[in-house]
């Protein structure tokens, strides 16, 4: 565990020195929030009854989708792809440390940076400029926090799997577009899953992506509460466990056929 925190801390500090990057990312989130705020507001003013929930809840859902993005999208796939491309992956493999564990620690560092440094100002912007609702009560907050941690776990492993794939394809940029599109669609990050047509909703129910954004945010705005919230958490745990096994198994398979470039 000590090693875990050492790596996480290192990444945290590595991020913290880029001040310009900080303002840029904050502005980026601001623009994203600005966009979704107006879209939902326009749709709501047009047909108030169509959502089944209040405008405040809807806007909060959309804003959280954007804020959580900076916390959860830690992108281990980019790190792996970059190391594979430059050949520096051998230094990672030489470390007397499990690779999957190492990546998890790095990503946790990224997440903590997003959470501690970026998410707070982003929430403040959301609250003061775009009617972001504060969390309802203690239990909801607790469920939400648990759910976010599980989301991180699920998202990290999906990214890790993609990274594993780049060991074979040697390139990530061409796949990245499709990957991000897939995530933002089926995770309910932009449009909540209950607004999907039946067929798409059924498909998304069978995919792990809903565990990333849809579940934590729905818990936050209380469209999932009580028993349903607990079931949703259980579903996240289920996906997390499956993905841990699949990730470790694929990495062990791919590890043996790794070609190191350059050097």
């Amino acid at each position, binding site marked *: 565990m000590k090693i875990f925190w050492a790596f996480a801390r290192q990444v945290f500090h590595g991020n913290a020195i880029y001040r310009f990057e900080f303002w840029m990312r904050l502005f980026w989130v601001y623009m994203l929030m*600005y966009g979704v705020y107006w879209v939902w507001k326009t*749709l709501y003013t047009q*047909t108030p009854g169509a959502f089944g929930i209040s405008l405040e809840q809807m806007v909060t859902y959309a804003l959280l989708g954007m804020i959580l993005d900076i916390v959860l999208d830690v992108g281990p796939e980019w790190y792996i792809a970059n190391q594979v491309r430059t050949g520096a992956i051998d230094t990672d493999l030489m470390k007397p440390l499990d690779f999957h564990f190492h990546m998890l620690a790095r990503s946790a560092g990224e997440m903590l940076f997003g959470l501690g440094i970026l998410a707070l100002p982003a929430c403040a912007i959301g609250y003061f400029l775009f009617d972001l609702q504060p969390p309802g009560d203690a239990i909801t907050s607790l469920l939400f926090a648990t759910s976010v941690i599980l989301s991180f776990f699920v998202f990290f492993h999906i990214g890790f799997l993609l990274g594993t794939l780049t060991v074979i394809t040697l390139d990530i940029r061409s796949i990245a577009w499709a990957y991000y599109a897939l995530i933002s669609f089926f995770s309910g990050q*932009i449009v909540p899953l209950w607004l999907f047509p039946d067929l798409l909703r059924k498909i998304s129910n069978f995919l792990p992506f809903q565990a990333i954004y849809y579940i934590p945010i729905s818990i936050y705005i209380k469209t999932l509460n009580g028993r349903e919230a607990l079931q949703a958490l259980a579903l996240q745990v289920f996906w997390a466990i499956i993905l841990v096994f699949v990730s470790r198994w694929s990495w062990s398979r791919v590890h043996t056929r790794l070609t190191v470039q350059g050097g």
Partner: protein
Amino acid sequence: MNGVQLYFRLIHISLLSRMQYQANFIVGILGLLFWNVINLGLIGVLVTQFTSLKDWTLWEVVFLYSLWIFGYSLYGVFFSHTSELENYLIEGTFDQFLLRPASPLIQLLGREFQLNELANVFIGLTGISLAYTRLDLHWDGWKWGFFIASVVSGGIIVLAINLLIACTGFWTGRSRGTSFIVSQFYYLVQQYPIDIFGMGFRLIVTGLLPVAFMNYYPALFLLDKVNHASPSWWLSYISPLVAFLLVGIVSVVWQLALIRYSSSGS
């Protein structure tokens, strides 16, 4: 050899080197197609669920999106190497363009021909044709002419804005941050009719970063949505003029930038 010939010669060379990576090319194209289909899918879900976005129906939004991407694809295919200018400046490798007896701009632009971006041409064409039939449009010759002019203007507008931003690198050293922020404006204008946003945003994308002239304003005219009672009705007709003005500005800035350039050494 004149500039245009030289440009196509360079493009030809870069194309040959690109075709060395065929698998990557195919995956890249599929990825971009998929990304656009999903993007449109999301807007589609919203607009069909709520029948319209303000007074824009589903197919009108598709038209808006496709018009933008069609114009952008012209930039993407031919001129996307603009965004690499920063790297040349930082590494001091921009010198090579100045040493050869040809226009530095043409050498820079001719470096890369992005075949992957052909996916966007395809998306643009498909989206516009579908919208055209679904909306039951019947354009006369003038409108077709204006449509083509708008698409070309769109490509020029992106090129000019991106080149201007890249040029700031001559003074500040870095330009990536600015282009990152500008891409957010692109994204919003591409996807949604700008009249759903606040006044500040609309002023920015009309005056400061005139990306709304790539799709929103010409679409108002092409889809017969111009409100002649509004004081800004004429904006729908001036996209080519905006493109023309931007080219003027960017050529002056580019000349100034070349004078200003001092190599980073190495």
